[in-house]
């Protein structure tokens, strides 16, 4: 038989967004309860595919993230009673654990005036940690006399089900998660149910080889999930899975957390700013005043007559480098972002 695969699901449980999503004024409303029953059917289908398939589900709640279900933890005490003869046991345990933990958390939510930002990054990071722990656990047991060579958790995947708009303050942590996922060879799939297109999650799916799907018909969620997100990577080579035609590669600036079309990148640490700054806030590099003047003059908002060609927009981030870590100072100066960073950097003041 074939190899088992691991799936981590990150569920966005923002109360306000789900309220909006379920409103009947939408063309295809999807209330939370209908969403959960379709999601559970999908999770059951994943377990049904192979007895050794593993699963973990993280919930992103306002201001926090929690583990809703993990197939690695032991069956809790309350399920040792008589089982339902009409339901496959693992499904029963999965469904009731999920529903119990969700209802516990939703009841515990306080009625605040303003909802704290959704804990999507926390949930994403936790599922990456989970995958890392599972892969490492199996390889350490090998070192202690196991059977096979280095056992890596086969085909780990993360599926993000999102309804909230992008939180621009979470740009840096999301990018860092993407880089860790690349390193762990984890595929991130994104299913966007409601709200505006998510720039960051589009990039996450694109950079890890996953697929990003914005549901036009959220009420047909289960069919989307089954066809696009159920097949493990090996099957996806045979049955194609929709991918994005165009990816929004815009980045968020470090100073105001705005998503920018054109940014200014520190030539030392690659921090991104929405306007030229005299001192880099990350690595404290000072930039020459002349460069600042020149860059200010070339800003697209006020096009200077002498600029020969507008600078190309910040299209992509360097993929192999993490953002926000200062590198050793080899040369400094503030440069306008362009595919090649040569020529525009100037000596420091």
């Amino acid at each position: 038989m074939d190899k088992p695969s691991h799936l981590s699901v990150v569920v966005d449980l923002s109360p306000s967004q789900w309220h909006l999503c379920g409103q009947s004024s939408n063309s295809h409303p999807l209330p939370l309860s209908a969403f959960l029953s379709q999601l559970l059917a999908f999770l059951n289908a994943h377990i049904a595919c192979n007895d050794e398939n593993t699963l973990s589900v993280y919930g992103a709640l306002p201001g926090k993230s929690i583990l809703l279900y993990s197939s690695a933890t032991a069956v809790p005490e309350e399920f040792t009673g008589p089982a339902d003869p009409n339901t496959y046991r693992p499904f029963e345990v999965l469904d009731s654990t999920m529903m119990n933990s969700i209802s516990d958390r939703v009841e515990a939510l306080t009625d605040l005036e303003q909802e704290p930002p959704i804990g999507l990054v926390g949930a994403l990071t936790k599922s990456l940690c989970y995958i890392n722990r599972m892969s490492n656990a199996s390889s350490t047991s090998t070192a202690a006399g196991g059977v096979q060579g280095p056992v890596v958790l086969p085909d780990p995947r993360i599926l993000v089900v999102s309804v909230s708009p992008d939180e621009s303050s979470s740009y840096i942590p999301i990018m860092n998660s993407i880089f860790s996922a690349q390193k762990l060879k984890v595929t991130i799939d994104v299913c966007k149910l409601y709200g505006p297109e998510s720039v960051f999650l589009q990039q996450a799916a694109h950079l890890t080889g996953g697929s990003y799907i914005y549901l036009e018909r959220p009420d047909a969620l289960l069919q989307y999930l089954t066809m696009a997100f159920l097949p493990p990577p090996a099957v996806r080579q045979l049955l194609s899975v929709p991918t994005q035609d165009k990816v929004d590669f815009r980045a968020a600036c470090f100073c105001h957390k705005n998503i920018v079309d054109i940014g200014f990148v520190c030539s030392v640490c690659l921090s991104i700013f929405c306007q030229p700054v005299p001192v880099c806030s990350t690595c404290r590099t000072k930039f020459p005043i002349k460069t600042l003047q020149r860059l200010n003059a070339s800003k697209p908002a006020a096009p200077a007559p002498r600029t020969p060609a507008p600078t190309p927009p910040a299209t992509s981030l360097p993929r192999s480098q993490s953002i926000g870590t200062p590198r050793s100072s080899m040369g400094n100066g503030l440069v306008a972002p362009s595919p090649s960073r040569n020529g525009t950097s100037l000596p420091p003041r």
Partner: protein
Amino acid sequence: MAAANPDEHGDVNSEASPHALLTFLQSQSQNTLSRLYQKPSSCLSIFRLLGPLDRQLVMNLLWLDSAIPASTMNAWVTREGRKPYEASLGILSRLHILPSSPVKLALNPTFKTSLRQAITGGGTSGSFGVPAGNDDKHTTPSVEKLDAYALERWETILHYMVSSGSGRYPAKPSQGVLLLLQRSGLMTSPHGAALQITSSGFQFLLYSPHTQLWELLLQYLHMAEERQMDLVEVLSFLFMLSTMELGREYSTEHLSGTQTAMLEDLRDYGIIWQRKASSRRFNPTRLATTLTSSAPPLPTTSGSGGTTQSQGFIVLETNYRIYAYTDNPLQIAILNLFITLKSRFPNLVVGAITRESVKKALANGITADQIISYLTTHAHPQMRRNKPLLPVTVQDQIRLWELEKNRVKSQEGYLYTAFASQADYEYVLDYAKKLDVVLWESAARRCFFGSLEGHANIRGFIERRTAGNV
């Protein structure tokens, strides 16, 4: 015979042979299968036995209410996926999961309803086993106890098989098991004498437990038809067992007559455990619950040595010596099939692969590949660091010894001799050579040997020629 090497996890792209049971199911009538598909647990188990692509196709169609045009599904298939996709459609239609229609794709309605019910839960079928209520008198047996029971039963069967040739008879399995072994051709009793292991029996010993189990169960299914048992009842009970939970007690009250009769057989194979034959509750063992998964059905091997043996215990050196860290009589007996044992210690057996020992194994019908795959599967963790795992010299030598056996090849045919003249001989030989049927020729003796297929033509040719001369 089942696939020889089920331990090798097939890549999706490779044409992995389908599970042995699927082949059996494909030979069943549509009526039988439709009745089988009424149980959600059966559908779930069959679904799990399918290949990865087959499963995805079933899932894609599962939640659709109406049939979709085949061209729509075709559009999803990549260029590399074309061939596996066609193969999957073939398997699914032979199982009657996908009624064969070239234009529209839709699941068999019975199968669809049952699989949906399996995944969403609910219904009143009770097909996942009715758990027994709490028993105040006895405590539920622990998982360890069930494992030990399953292992003991299973090893009794294998040990009986392996030692039948040697004249020593250890604990005898029950009459039902013996009949099954005999009917499956794994053992035979020449002239009514005691049972002797056959060459397919020797091959059987080297399979993985999962394959061994399914092979016996398949034979059981074949016998069930002869014993006037309802095949659907037998199959759904096996599938029900495979979806049960290890360490839980189930009640026999809701079983049909056929299924109650099966309890005794399954108890003998170690698939279920019962306190006593008349008990109204039973526990599935790990052999049962892993029927449709790739997890090892036997967790640890018995013997005082304990836990590491299931992970591999054989060290093979380039000088053909074998060190087997085991005290399990079954494993020693199986090794004894193809190595010469030199010395034995409390937890270690030392032997060597020799020409004689391998020849003996080959004479028993074991192939060189089976010996090599057995050694690979049971190699000691220390051996895993070697690349390749087994010394190449030893592997090659075992294969060469096998080739030695096949030095003489026999072929049926006719000898043409007593030609009147050299010209005649050459004329006929020329004709036979054109047909490519000459196996041997000798111009000095004016004779040649042609294969069986060519005889009619050559004969006709000679007759025509003789008639023409006259």
